[in-house]
């Protein structure tokens, strides 16, 4: 039985897509595994956490003690009063921190200090496992514009 050129082409394309996607997903899980392993190798960790209320008031909670495996939301709730709504598939949507509530134009966003500077949190706070000596920042802001444009530029403690 001979396979036509057209069939061969489409089978090849399908295999190509499968192999590239499988490689990317494997890489993704490899990275996630190593990241989680590095964050949970000791039982007690310390993190730095800043809260900017958007009115000039900034509170820092340096060397806050946390358990390995705690999420960023867990750590925040250790030092502040948090009201949030759990959204299936997405995670916790923060409604207020220390009674400062979201408005139509201002929301609570979180940021992580990295080698590249401040990076906006890519997932909900209850989906991010904190790591030892990492620095986080809650910022009550109008979208992320002010932070991105450099209007507010906190430095890590």
């Amino acid at each position, binding site marked *: 039985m001979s396979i036509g050129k*057209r069939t061969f082409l*489409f089978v090849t*394309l*399908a295999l*190509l*897509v499968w192999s*590239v*996607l499988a490689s*990317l*997903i494997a*890489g*993704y899980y490899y*990275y996630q595994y190593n990241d989680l392993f590095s964050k949970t190798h000791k039982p007690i960790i310390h993190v730095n956490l800043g809260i900017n209320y958007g009115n000039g008031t900034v509170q820092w909670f340096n060397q806050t003690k946390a358990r390995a495996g705690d999420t960023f939301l867990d750590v925040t709730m250790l030092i502040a009063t948090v009201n949030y709504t759990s959204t299936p598939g997405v995670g916790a949507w923060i409604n207020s921190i220390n009674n400062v509530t979201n408005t139509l134009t201002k929301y609570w966003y979180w940021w992580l200090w990295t080698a*590249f500077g401040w990076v906006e949190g890519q997932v909900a706070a209850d989906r991010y496992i904190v790591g030892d000596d990492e620095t986080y920042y809650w910022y009550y802001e109008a979208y992320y514009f002010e932070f991105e444009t450099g209007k507010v530029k906190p430095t890590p403690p």
Partner: protein
Amino acid sequence: MRFQTRQLALFCALAAASVGIQLAPRPPNIEFTSLITFTVGIVFGWYMGALLGGFVMFVNGFLSPWGLAGWNLPFQVVGMSIIGWVGGVYGKTLKKEVSAGLFIEAAVLGSFLTLVYDLITNVGVALLAEKAIVGVLIFGAAFSLLHVASNTVLFGFATVPVVNAIRKSLGR
């Protein structure tokens, strides 16, 4: 290229629908622009397919509910134009008879073209942010998987019926 009035009206309606759907709030990476661009390429030819795809992404780059595309806009335009172009090339190989094989071919092309689009736009992100390309691709793997899976299903089920419907309305 000369358009008949009916062709022009249909093309404009598809372009408007494409922009409207693209700008509407929706789950990330689930979109219909690729499908419409691809089918327009099949029916109207590679030039119009590429033009439509590029146009929709250009508008999307400024008005998207997910924010401004910024300097990644050219990569999005090129990625979507390729989908329209391939639609035109693929359309030339199609016969009038509908068979099960066409549905499978459309699904495979949907997955392949979506992957190509994601690779192009992720490379754009990596270059603009001066980050490692492999790192950016791996970081976005879950989104790519969702995008490819949804477009595979969408192309597989919808391409043949949509193309037939457009052709019927054009009286072909």
